[in-house]
């Protein structure tokens, strides 16, 4: 099989399992799970084959390994248009395929435990299959139309899975919010596509082919202000999908979905799609340096901005969510300063350790029946496997060597000091690294340290929210099964262990420049030991501060909060951006304008119509009285009419009327 054929197979496997779970096995939930796992497992194996082949015989560009089918075809000598669906495989796509199928496979296995007994079990696996297929389609796409196609479909799956427990009002609201906020960004992406269609030869089959767009000859042709706007349009889509400021607000709310969903979609894969897209179009972005600056600063700002909110959240999943936003900002910043390898390497490492963190927090939620870290405590004894694996992930995220996050974060920081970098960006990155280490170990000390603080009689509160339709506060109907917390079943802990091993190892892939060499021709890895030292010191400082406040309790968290009173308030209220977006802009401005227009429509547009009708009725009522039956009166009216027409004629009016209508 050619690489492209393998690509199609990888795309279709989860699509087939989606169809099977919807139409054939819906009534047998367990089977739905097995079918999905089997399909994604096969896709994972195929992805490994693709990766091995790409590594063994470097293919260079995407141009050589693609296969397209016409999707929309408007033939003709002029104004013809061909939009195609096609796949292309290059090292970047190959790595991404392995990430998507690998994490998805582990998440599906884990979900068997996490979602056990849920009434929507079959639906869950159907949506997960559809998501995996859509995400793979996005990764494999060889042209921008197909990227957009699957870009929207992953958005749909995100919507469906955030709102999976649709009976929870918060979940339904979060799902809607996620879709609409990301769609704002998608509008930019769409407009960029429109611009590209007409500025790159639309007639040829290469129309929006990514490899073609990225060629130097193409880019030279379209360089200029237009290209900068197009790049910014594409970036707008990435800002929405990858939850960058100012469109980041949907991601923390998306935590209303089941935790494995958060791990797969809102940590490892879909939210990284924005980063992936920018990386895919990297030559195009490089041809628009002004856009690159925007990418770098939006990323850098998002990194520290989101990290600051992560400092004060109590919900473990929300901490992770802000952490994800922040790390995605890191990746964007890397791309913005020209660090393609650093950005993608971080994406790669982050996918594993962040998925691990989410699945780990899912295990914590599963074991304690709460998402609030203040109600946890002492989990290191009750949940040893979860503890060790989450610890590894936290160390990795904090950037402690030799865990994977250290290597890629370091490369990013080093790149911010490089040719296209900026000391300010380096400072933002370093500050964010400090905050990251602090909030992660705040969670570690609060949740795993001390002793269990959860409700002793948690079992009594066991709820079955799905069936009774009552609102439930928890992520799931999970509650503590016995007094205190308990470790999760093996089906959940084994994926944790696998991911933990990856979180230790994947960082070494680029120590000798192997990873980067595949992505970028002539890539040489270089270590900046000064940057390394400073980032490790900063991370250790963050961990130490967390220990001082939450571990040893030398400093009381309350007094710390009081000391930073106003700042603390801003942070817990998420900088009031939700108030601004939802209260002022949406409910105030948008709905207000719509309501005014609706009133206008009813009162004036329809009012005039009805008014005219009433006027006609009134006039006919009056005119009716003229119908007297006296012939003399009629003759008089006819005579008057003739006089009027003759008068008009003599004034020359008919000519001017026909003169008006004759020629445009």
């Amino acid at each position, binding site marked *: 099989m050619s690489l492209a054929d393998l690509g199609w197979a990888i795309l279709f496997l989860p699509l087939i399992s989606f169809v099977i779970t919807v139409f054939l096995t819906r009534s047998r939930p367990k089977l739905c799970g097995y079918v999905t796992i089997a399909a994604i497992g096969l896709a994972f194996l195929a992805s490994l084959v693709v990766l091995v082949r790409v590594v063994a015989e470097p293919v260079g560009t995407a141009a050589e390994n693609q296969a397209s089918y*016409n*999707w*929309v*075809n*408007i*033939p*003709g000598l*002029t*104004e013809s*248009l061909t*939009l195609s669906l096609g796949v292309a495989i290059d090292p970047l796509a190959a790595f991404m395929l392995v990430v998507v199928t690998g994490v998805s496979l582990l998440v599906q296995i884990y979900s068997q435990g996490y979602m056990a007994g849920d009434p929507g079990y079959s639906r869950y696996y159907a949506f997960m299959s559809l998501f995996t297929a859509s995400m793979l389609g996005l990764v494999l796409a060889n042209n921008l*139309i197909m990227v*957009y*196609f*699957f870009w*929207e*479909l992953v958005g*749909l799956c995100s*919507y469906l899975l955030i*709102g999976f427990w*649709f*009976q*929870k*009002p918060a*979940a*339904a*609201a979060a*799902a*809607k919010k996620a*879709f*609409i906020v990301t*769609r*704002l960004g*998608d*509008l930019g992406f*769409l*407009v960029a596509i*429109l*611009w590209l*269609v*007409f500025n790159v030869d639309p007639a040829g089959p290469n129309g929006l082919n990514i490899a073609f767009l990225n060629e130097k000859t193409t880019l030279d042709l379209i360089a200029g202000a237009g290209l900068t706007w197009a790049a910014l349009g594409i970036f707008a889509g990435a800002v929405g999908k990858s939850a960058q400021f100012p469109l980041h607000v949907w991601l923390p709310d998306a935590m209303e979905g089941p935790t494995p969903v958060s791990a797969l979609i809102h940590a490892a894969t879909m939210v990284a799609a924005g980063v992936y897209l920018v990386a895919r179009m990297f030559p195009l972005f490089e041809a628009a340096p002004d856009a690159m600056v925007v990418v770098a600063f939006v990323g850098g700002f998002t990194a520290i901005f989101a990290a600051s909110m992560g400092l004060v959240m109590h919900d473990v999943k929300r901490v992770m969510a802000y952490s994800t936003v922040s790390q995605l900002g890191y990746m964007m910043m890397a791309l913005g300063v020209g660090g393609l390898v650093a950005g993608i390497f971080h994406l790669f490492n982050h996918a594993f350790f962040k998925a691990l963190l989410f699945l780990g927090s899912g295990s914590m939620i599963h074991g304690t029946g709460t998402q609030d870290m203040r109600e946890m405590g002492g989990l290191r004894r009750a949940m040893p496997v979860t503890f060790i694996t989450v610890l590894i992930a936290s160390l990795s995220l904090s950037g402690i060597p030799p865990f994977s996050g250290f290597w890629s974060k370091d490369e990013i920081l080093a790149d911010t000091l490089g040719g296209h970098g900026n000391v300010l960006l380096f400072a933002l990155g370093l500050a964010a690294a400090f905050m990251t280490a602090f909030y992660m170990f705040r969670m570690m000390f609060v949740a795993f340290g001390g002793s269990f603080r959860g409700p002793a009689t948690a079992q009594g509160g066991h709820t079955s929210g799905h069936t009774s*339709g*009552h*609102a439930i506060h928890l992520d799931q109907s999970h509650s503590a099964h016995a007094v205190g917390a308990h470790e999760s079943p093996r089906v959940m802990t084994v994926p944790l262990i696998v991911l933990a091993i990856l979180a230790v190892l994947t960082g070494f892939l680029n120590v000798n420049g192997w990873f980067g060499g595949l992505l970028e021709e002539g890539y040489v890895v270089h270590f900046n030991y000064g940057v390394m030292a400073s980032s490790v010191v900063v991370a250790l400082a963050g961990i130490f501060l967390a220990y001082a406040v939450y571990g040893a309790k030398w400093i009381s968290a309350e007094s710390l909060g009081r000391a930073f009173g106003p700042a603390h308030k801003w942070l817990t209220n998420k900088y009031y951006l939700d108030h601004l977006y939802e209260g002022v802009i949406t409910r105030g401005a*948008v*709905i207000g*304008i*719509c*309501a005014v*227009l*609706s009133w206008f*429509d009813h009162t004036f*547009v*329809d009012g005039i*119509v009805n008014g005219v*009708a009433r006027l006609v009725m009134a006039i006919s009522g009056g005119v009716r009285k003229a119908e007297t039956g006296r012939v003399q009166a009629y003759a008089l009216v006819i005579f008057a009419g003739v006089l009027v027409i003759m008068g008009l004629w003599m004034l020359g009016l008919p000519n001017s009327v*026909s003169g008006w*209508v*004759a020629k*445009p």
Partner: protein
Amino acid sequence: MPYLTIITFLPLVGAIAIALLLKRDDARGIKWVAAGFSLVTFLLSLVLVFLFKTNDPMLQAQFVERANWISVGQFKVEYFLGVDGLSLPMVILTTLLGFLAVLISWKISLRPKEYFSLLLVLETGVLGVFTSLDFFLFFLFWEVELVPMFLLIGIWGSGRREYSAMKFLIYTIVGSAFMLAGILWLYFASSPNTFDMIALGQGSVKEGANLIFLLLFIGFAIKLPMVPFHTWLPDAHSDAPTAVSVMLAGVLLKMGGYGIIRICVTILPDAAKYFAPALLILAVIGVLYGAAVTMVQKDLKRLIAYSSVSHMGYVLLGVAALTKIGLVGAVLQMFTHGTITGLLFMVVGLIYDRTHTRQIPELTGGLAQRMPVIAAVFTVAGLASLGLPALSGFVAELLVFIGVYEKYQLAAILGASGIVLTAGYILWMLQRVFFGEFNPKWSDLTDAVTVERVAVFTMVVVIVLVGVAPAVVLNMVNTAVPTIMARLGS
């Protein structure tokens, strides 16, 4: 074989059969006869798709049937039927929705004999509009459709049904009056003097082209409906029975778009170019204004009606750009809007049958838990409406945007921004009606029954099919556009 005559008049034959042969109280028999006739009509129209030649773009019309009908001196009216790539998709849409409208009316108990007869007469009227190639015949069919619509809304409607029926009738007749004036003027102003729409589409108009264009356009714009002539639509929809809403949104509005393309643009291309910028502005206003007004509607049917105003704005937008891709997009948008909005109205009907309300604040309360199938179908239709890829709306809107962007970038961007508003009102509606905490007052509700499932699943299949493989419609549409573009001189 006179396919088009058979297809056009088969529903009418069914109507006559029901009226003459069946007993008033034989509701079962009436329904089956209506379903049978409309199903055969649909299947026959599918046969046309397979016989339709897509490889010869110079072919003006296919399945032509032609005979002298009225001949007074020079004044000659023909019985002249034929379809091309523009009208055939509309014919399919009409026969499909005609059949499903019967299925979705299965629970009608008030005077079923009259109801189903009128429904079938309506179908013949609309089919006649799409198959006529004689302008006079076209106008006759255009008027024929009014009578059953008026009666169906006025008798089987709800709420202020008489007001709404009358408003629909008067509004459309005012439009028809302008149109008739335009038709007659066109007859005398054109060379040759003829009602033959193909000949008109090749000939030229001596004088007054702009005024003729306006007269005809007003008739079509009211039907489309174009802002500001749209206020009859929400009233008609909110008081019409379900099947009539389906036909109204699904195919009757398309008569407006069809007329604009077939007549205004093809016969009067210079006038079309002259007015295009104005139409473009009105279209953008329609898209955004319609979407904004939709956002705050509380009645589900009014909500979908206003969303139709917005989505039909895309049709006008695609046409007004006068580009090939825009035209193709507009025709595809007519087809997909027919299926999507038809489905939306069907599902609203199913909800109304069960809850006896269409007010969103009253419905609020997790209906999805009692009617998962209805909720799922409504979600699919809603997603199609907001232009989700793999469903039919996306392709059509994308083509409209591309086609408009070619000439008018700002209009395309403004039009495209409608997709954000659409996502807003669709998802907000779904959230309020189906999701959230369960309201115990809906405990006794039931999900869709078999006949309803057949109807809605058929629509879902069509929506997915066109979304995944748009070629099934595009191959037809592609054959019609070169002729029109040639008229426009490009």
